[in-house]
Structure formats: structure tokens, C-alpha cells
């Protein structure tokens, strides 16, 4: 029963990673932009959710504000900055998007101050559901898993069964050819970027009641998100899903079972240090192993 609960916990962490990674991988894969500012949109979403929910008293309105706020901020940043980076090399992109990170952090500090806000939640949010006989699981975390699932299905439909999805796939394969065929590639890029930012907003909204809504919250999760897309294969949403599941599960199950196991095998002093080292490196160990076997990631966008 504990194993099942830990699996659900892993699934929930995977859902957070997937929401962030799916947008990032599209932006990276299609536009070729290394977007270090991706976490900033997640932070903007969380702040919009918390302050709107506090002001209006409505949890769902907070969610709407998170999506709208992140998308709008994404539109502004894409128009003002990212658009100019498509044909630059990666160093320029890293520098410019890093500047966006600093700028956004200061902007939020100026607007909201340094105190992290509390996201008010409705009564049902704190309730528990009996997912299996004897296993009670909080609604808050089920909601998170549900959102991840919904986005995964939605993305699959969007990419495989719509005209827009076709253009996205084509753009990932050969964006020059797509442009030559008369598709407004600039508008497609803007659309994809804003869509990725809206997904960040959704992640921020889901995370706001469970995590601290604070300056710099995006940077904390950004590195793991990059690991996810590298493991999954850059530019591939399916890869992002598999990568998020792999990294989320390894991290959660590792934290659950590695320390007790090592405690039994080794003396207390060595086991503590060893399990701490293993756990902080777990995502990178997975990445290294995957890249050894499949240098382009598990499910690369381009075969």
C-alpha cells in the first residue's frame, strides 16, 4: 500500500515536470531557442494565481488568471526579445533569456514584495479520496496528476490530429521549408511560445497551493526540466512525457526506498552520506545512462 502511495507521489511530481517540459521542449525543438526564462513564466503563473485568488476569493479564477497572465507575459517577452533570437547562436539566447530571468525576478519583487503569498484553497481541496481500499490520497495531488494527464492527452490530439499540430511537427523537422511553403512561420513561433507559457501558468497554478510562491521558484525546477527534455529527446512531446515519468519516478521512489535500504546494508555514517549523494545526483545519473545508450534521448523528434 505504501508502494502504491509512493507511486502516486512519483506520478504527481512527474505531472509537474511534464507541464513545464512539454512547453520547453516545443520551444527548444521547433524554434531552436534555449529558453532559460521558462521557469520565470511558471513563477508569473503562480503569483497571478495566488494574488487573484486572494483578491477574488475564487480558486478557479486564480487558475484562469495564471493561464492568462503567463500567456500574456509570454507574448510580451516573445515580441520584445525572443523574436530577435531565432537566428542568433545559443550563447546570445542564453544571455538574453538569463536577463529575462533577472528582470522578471526584480519585476515581481517590485510589484509584490519579497513575502511569499499564501494561495487560498476551497474546502474540498484539502479533502481525501479513497483511491483504493485503505489508500487515502489527497484531492490536491490527484488534481495535479489529472492536469498532467489532461495536458498529455490534449497535446497528443493537438499535435497528431490538427492542422496546427501538423505545422508544429513540420516546423520541428524543417522550419525553412515550412516557411518557403507560405506558412507564416513567425506567427507559428509566437503561438507555440505563448502556448508553452500558458502551460507554465497552469503548472504555476497547480503548484501554488502546494509549494512556496516565491521569487526564484522557477530556477529551482528549471534544471530538472532541462534534464527531462534531454532524457526524452529534444523537441519531442512524447519524449517529454516519458522523460518526466522516468525522472519523477526515479526521484520519488529513490527518496522513498534508497535511504532505508542503505541503512540496512551499511553503518549509519556512511549510508547517510551515500544515499544523500545518490539522491541528489539521481536525475543526472539517469540522464548519463540514457545518453550512453541513446545519445539523442529516448524518443527524439527527428529520427
Amino acid at each position, binding site marked *: 500500500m*505504501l508502494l502504491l*502511495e*509512493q507511486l502516486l*507521489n*512519483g506520478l*504527481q*511530481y512527474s505531472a*509537474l515536470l511534464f507541464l513545464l517540459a512539454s512547453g520547453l521542449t516545443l520551444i527548444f525543438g521547433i524554434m531552436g531557442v534555449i529558453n532559460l526564462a521558462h521557469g520565470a513564466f511558471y513563477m508569473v503563473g503562480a503569483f497571478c494565481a495566488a494574488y487573484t485568488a486572494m483578491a477574488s476569493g475564487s480558486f478557479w479564477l486564480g487558475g484562469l488568471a495564471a493561464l492568462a497572465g503567463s500567456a500574456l507575459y509570454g507574448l510580451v517577452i516573445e515580441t520584445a526579445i525572443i523574436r530577435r533570437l531565432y537566428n542568433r547562436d545559443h550563447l546570445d539566447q542564453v544571455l538574453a533569456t538569463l536577463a529575462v530571468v533577472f528582470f522578471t*525576478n526584480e519585476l515581481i*519583487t517590485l510589484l509584490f514584495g*519579497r*513575502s*511569499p*503569498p*499564501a*494561495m*487560498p*484553497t476551497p474546502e474540498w*481541496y*484539502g479533502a*481525501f479520496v479513497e483511491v483504493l481500499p485503505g489508500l*487515502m490520497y*489527497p484531492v*490536491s*495531488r490527484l488534481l495535479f496528476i489529472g492536469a498532467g494527464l489532461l495536458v498529455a492527452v490534449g497535446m497528443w490530439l493537438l499535435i497528431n490530429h490538427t492542422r496546427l499540430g501538423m505545422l508544429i511537427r513540420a516546423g520541428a523537422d524543417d522550419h525553412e521549408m515550412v516557411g518557403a511553403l507560405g506558412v507564416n512561420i513567425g506567427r507559428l513561433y509566437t503561438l507555440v511560445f505563448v502556448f508553452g507559457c500558458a502551460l507554465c501558468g497552469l503548472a504555476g497554478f497547480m503548484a501554488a*497551493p*502546494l*509549494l*512556496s*510562491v*516565491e*521569487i*526564484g*521558484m522557477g530556477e*529551482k*525546477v528549471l534544471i530538472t526540466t532541462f534534464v527531462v527534455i534531454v532524457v526524452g529527446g529534444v523537441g519531442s512531446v512524447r519524449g517529454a512525457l516519458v522523460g518526466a515519468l522516468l525522472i519523477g519516478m526515479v526521484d*520519488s*521512489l529513490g*527518496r*522513498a526506498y534508497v*535511504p532505508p535500504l542503505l541503512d540496512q546494508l551499511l553503518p549509519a555514517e556512511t549510508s*547517510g552520506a551515500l*544515499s*544523500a549523494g545518490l*539522491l*541528489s545526483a539521481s536525475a543526472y545519473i539517469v540522464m548519463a545512462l540514457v545518453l550512453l545508450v541513446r545519445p539523442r534521448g529516448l524518443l527524439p523528434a527527428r529520427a
Partner: protein
Amino acid sequence: MKKTLNLAMLGAVLASSLNALAQEPVRIGFITTLSTPAGYLGEDARDAFRLAIEQEGGKLGGVPVELLVEDDGLQPAKGKQIVDRMTLDGISLYTGVMFSNVLAAVVNAATQGDRFYISANAGPSNLAGEQCKANYFAASYQNDVPHEMAGVAANDLGYQKMVILAPNYQAGRDALAGFKRTFKGEVSEIYTKLNQLDFSVELARVRALNPDAVFQFHPGGAGINFAKQYGSSGLAKSIPMVVPVFSMDERMLAATGNVAEGVNVVSGWNPQSDKPANQAFIQAFTAKYNRAPTMYAAQGYDTARLIGSALKATSGNLEDADAFRSALRAADFDSVRGDFRFGSNQHAVIDWHLLKVQAGADGKLAEVPVKTIATAQVDSYAAKCAL
């Protein structure tokens, strides 16, 4: 550039004319953490320090002072750069560092020769024992004491079996060691990752171990994450939590919301103490900054007024280091934390309180005093200090 030039010129004027010294303001180097998510710690300490200066019209202890604030960004290397630059500028009085790792990089330069460092927060154990320094004072606390006091509080509350959690780095391991030093019952330790976001896995382990209570040390954002998830996991209803104040200060409480109700908090500052100095401080701070002070603010304010008392006794003359040191040791000021004196290792000896998060008079959650855990608590390293 112009400012540095001005400072350099000011330094030259100071050096050339001893007579002018009495009128020139005493400059205080305030190196603290203002950026990063932990920036609110430094912000509160700085604002409280400024409040004390403002209340005296730009003076401390009747001596004009100038506060030079710099952000260390929670990076030891940056803290070191700042203190080196400030010593070149001729500053000989320092305070403000929030974190032990930054302090370790700053403290040597800040206490060399006739320079003084007075800590408003961090109190690492190595500076409290054998390596204590004549020109280093901790007006805050020694790092181990809050955790030792949490152990005493857990004994008092009758808990026999506890799960204790902290991130796996120096301060986290020290916290658990400090707790175990005084707690008499049985403990299971769980180490978390530094900067961990999601604690569901650890919480499931806590539920499986089913302890009487939980002790955890997660300052700042990680502590808010932990407390929010502890509440939403339903554990808060069945298993009480005992934490040092770093894991639940006023700002964290505001960010955590209702699920923090019932948490036992161990603090060296009782925010509801009816001591006039404390009430006046809280009123003035809230009126000026429109937010409730944290214990970081209380310590910053105490540090400012301690410096004020020593400046008063020496008429602002820092040249005579021995006289200034004796004046600091006397600690002749009205602390907002109650009775205050320095131990033999020049670390604060104060009372420790058990607070509980519950609805206050205005219906909002507050940290309400339950009892005093220890009076005039001396830290466990003082005996090893040869001062």
C-alpha cells in the same frame, strides 16, 4: 564610482583630522542577503536596524552613524569581496550577515586588528567554542540552541517517539544533532535534499512510522513547501509538529496559511511579550513598514541598539578597541527579547519560548506564547572558549 570616490575622500579627511572624528558619523558595514528567495531575512534585519537609527534621528547611542548596506546574494565569495572593499574604505564595524556559510567567509576580515563584527543572525558553532574571537559578538543566538530548545520542548510536551527531518547539508545535520542532544525519546531521522520541492515521499514515510510528533528544520521556501504539504497531506491533524522559528517565521506563516494551525514553534523572541521595549518596537516597525516584524527584525533591532549602547559608552570612539569591547560585553540596552546578557564566549544568553500557531485576538493566525522553555540559556560551546 562617485560614491566610492566620496568615501575615499571622506576617509582621507577622517585620517588627517582627529578632531573632526567626533563629528563625523561612525560608518557601519551591513552585509546581508537581500536577493534570492531568502532575501526577506536580510530585508527585515536591515529595515529594523534602520528603524533604530531613524528613531534617534540618524544616531545610535547619541552618536551619528551611517549605515552602508550591501547584498551578498547568499554567496560567500561575494560577501568576502564586499568586506574586503569595505575594510579598504576604512570601515571597522560590521554586522548583518544572515547565513553561516557567508559569515564564515566574512568573519576573519571583519574582525582583524581593531575591527568588530556583531552577528545579527548566524551563530556557527566553530566561532562559539575554541575558536571564539575577541572582536566577534553574536547578539542573535548560537546555531545549536534553537534545536536543543526544541528537544526540551518536545520532552515537556510528552512526546516519546519522533521523526526528525532536515536537508542534508551542514546546518541541517547540526539541527538534528542539536535536537538529539536534548530529546530523551526515540528518533527516526530522514534527510531531505537541499532545495527539495516536493515532500510527499517523506510525508508518506512519516505516516508509516506514525510518530508522536515531527521535528523539522527547513528555513525559507523549503519550510513553506513542507508546511503546506504537511497540512494538505492531513498529517497536521494527527501528528503535531515542533519546529525552530526558522521553519515557521511570521512571513512563512503568512505564506502557509490555515494549514499551519497548531504548529509548535521554538523561538528566542516572544512576539507577544508585553515588555514595553518589545511593544514599542512592534508598533513602530508595523507603522513604518506595514508588515509584522519577524525574529530577524527583532534581532536586527537588538543589534542596532546594542551597538548604540557601546557607542554611547565610548562617545563613538572606535579607536580604543578594548573600551569598545568592554562596552559591548556590558550589553547595557533594553532588548526586545527580554533579559539579555553575553556569555563568556560573547554569544547572547537569552530566554527561549514555546509558541503555538493559533488564531489571535483579531482572528488571524499568530504565534501565541505557551510557556518559557528555558531562562538565560548558555550554549553548549561556551565552556570551550578561552576569552
